[in-house]
């Protein structure tokens, strides 16, 4: 903090508050009130139509039902698979690729950067349409397989119950890997090159230098991207919804699709209370990790 006189201090509380009032009002109406409403609604049973929203109080039974609901556990497992793929595979591949670009001395020209980055800016609805076409039985992937003589492996990829969640997760990796890679590449540009050169003069191997010198210096970027991917994995909806809508037979159901399908009556009558309970659990998990991320930020800012 600056040592200069701050022209305004606590005495000007009202003036300072008036500056954040527009934000507070918008947050209040469109964020805080809805969150509170959902939390309350999760203790009720409501079909979405009857006028009396809060007439059927059911206590914790939506939450208790959650633990007994096999589809909820399927969606939980699938969400963890998506998170695992994003946090482990995507971070891993992106880091590996960034290291190769860095040590291979590639000059990333504008076109290459643009190609790497482009999937990340397209709507997931459109990405989903593209990959639904590619992964169809008569789609691009199978055409490629038959071209290289592997026709016997051709299947309708999005109908394969054991594969589908992994496939959807890897489409997410496809979309975001360029973004994460560029984050790591930017971090690599800022490491201490003299330390690295000194290590090589001392005869360090490439692997040794990477693990002992490079990775420790970019650990913040790695940790950050892992946390972001973790949260992103829990929140992802659009791509999964457009590609499979949780199917076939819940094989790619995740928290977000299950919440939508339960609340908006895709599986029988609308159950807004139960949908809210799922949303609340999802929000709690995400907030826990958001808090970790914020604490972490305060720590590096404090150093």
């Amino acid at each position, binding site marked *: 903090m600056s040592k200069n006189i701050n022209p305004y201090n606590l005495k000007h509380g009202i003036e300072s508050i008036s500056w954040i009032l527009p*934000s507070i009002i918008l947050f209040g109406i469109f964020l805080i009130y809805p969150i509170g409403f959902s939390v309350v609604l999760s203790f009720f049973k409501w079909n979405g139509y009857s006028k009396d929203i809060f007439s059927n109080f059911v206590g914790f039974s939506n939450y208790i039902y959650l633990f007994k609901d096999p589809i909820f556990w399927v969606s939980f497992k699938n969400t963890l698979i998506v998170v695992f793929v994003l946090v482990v595979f995507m971070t891993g591949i992106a880091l590996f690729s960034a290291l190769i670009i860095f*040590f291979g001395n590639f000059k990333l020209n504008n076109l290459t950067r643009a190609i790497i980055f482009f999937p990340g800016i397209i709507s997931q609805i459109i990405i989903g349409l593209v990959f639904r076409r590619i992964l169809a039985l008569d789609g*691009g992937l199978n055409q490629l397989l038959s071209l290289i003589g592997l026709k016997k492996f051709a299947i309708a990829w999005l109908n394969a119950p054991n594969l589908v969640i992994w496939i959807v997760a890897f489409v997410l990796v496809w979309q975001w890997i360029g973004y994460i890679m560029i984050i790591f590449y930017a971090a690599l540009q800022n490491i201490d090159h003299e330390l*690295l050169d000194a290590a090589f003069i001392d005869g360090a191997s490439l692997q040794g230098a990477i693990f002992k010198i490079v990775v420790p210096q970019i650990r913040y970027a790695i940790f950050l991207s892992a946390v972001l991917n973790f949260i992103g994995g829990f929140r992802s909806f659009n791509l999964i919804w457009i590609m499979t809508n949780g199917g076939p037979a819940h094989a790619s159901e995740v928290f977000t699709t299950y919440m939508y399908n339960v609340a908006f009556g895709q599986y029988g009558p609308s159950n807004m209370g139960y949908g809210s309970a799922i949303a609340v659990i999802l929000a709690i998990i995400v907030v826990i990790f958001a808090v970790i991320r914020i604490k972490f930020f305060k720590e590096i800012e404090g150093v």
Partner: protein
Amino acid sequence: MQKLTIGQKIFSRVYIIILLAIIILPLIWVFFLAFKKPNEIFQSFLFFFPKHFTIENFPKAIELAKTGLLVSYQRMYLNSAIVTAGGIILAILAASFGAFSIVYYKFKGREVYYTFVLLSYMIPIQILLIPLYLILYRFKLLNTYFALIFPYGTLGIPIATMILRNFFSQIPTEIRDAAFIDGANSFQIFKNIYLPLAKPALATCIIFLFLDMWNEFLFAFIFIRKESLATLPLAMSKIGMGGRTLIPWGVYAASILIAIVPIFIVFMIFQRWFIKGAMMGSVKG
């Protein structure tokens, strides 16, 4: 920098080429699909190049939008542009005031407020869906642009506040103190000093918000049921639903290309800003 062995050199080159191919091939495949005649879809040279280029899929895609989706592409572009612009303006107005307040004053609770902003950036929107629908219904805003502008604007405030706060806090306090001694009031200091200096940060904000709002789907899906107000992702999602088997693949691919055109142009023009913004977002925020 360490010299690479021949083996490492070859490996790194091959690896990068494969990586780029995996990233670009799906898009190239769809691109060429849009230029194929129906009888050529499954038997093209090298599985993606068309033998005979045709543009007949494009007028068909435009026609399909009008008759099948009940909204023209011009209208989708316009709808997306309106809600995106509205959301960005709302978010930046509110956030620039808020960020200024956090940096300029030392009021009680600003730490709490900022922590709240950081947290709300992460909130999964599923928890807002049902209540927002009821609020918008109560205010008679469903099926209007405002049904999206208000939620987009509100959810844009956190990231914009983070970016602007970081930028404002780097502005030397001497400038502010000098203006204060010269008798400028806080609004003048905001308008004449902080805001003009923050142009690069505002550009970053606009890019982040633009990407989020232009591509947003779930709110549009729930709050907009009138075809003529459909945003691009919303209208395109309907190509995927319903008569998916009836749409010829060439027309399907042409529709995708037409839908990508605006963001492709924006990306080409502001590419360096996009990538700069992404890198900045990674360091802070």
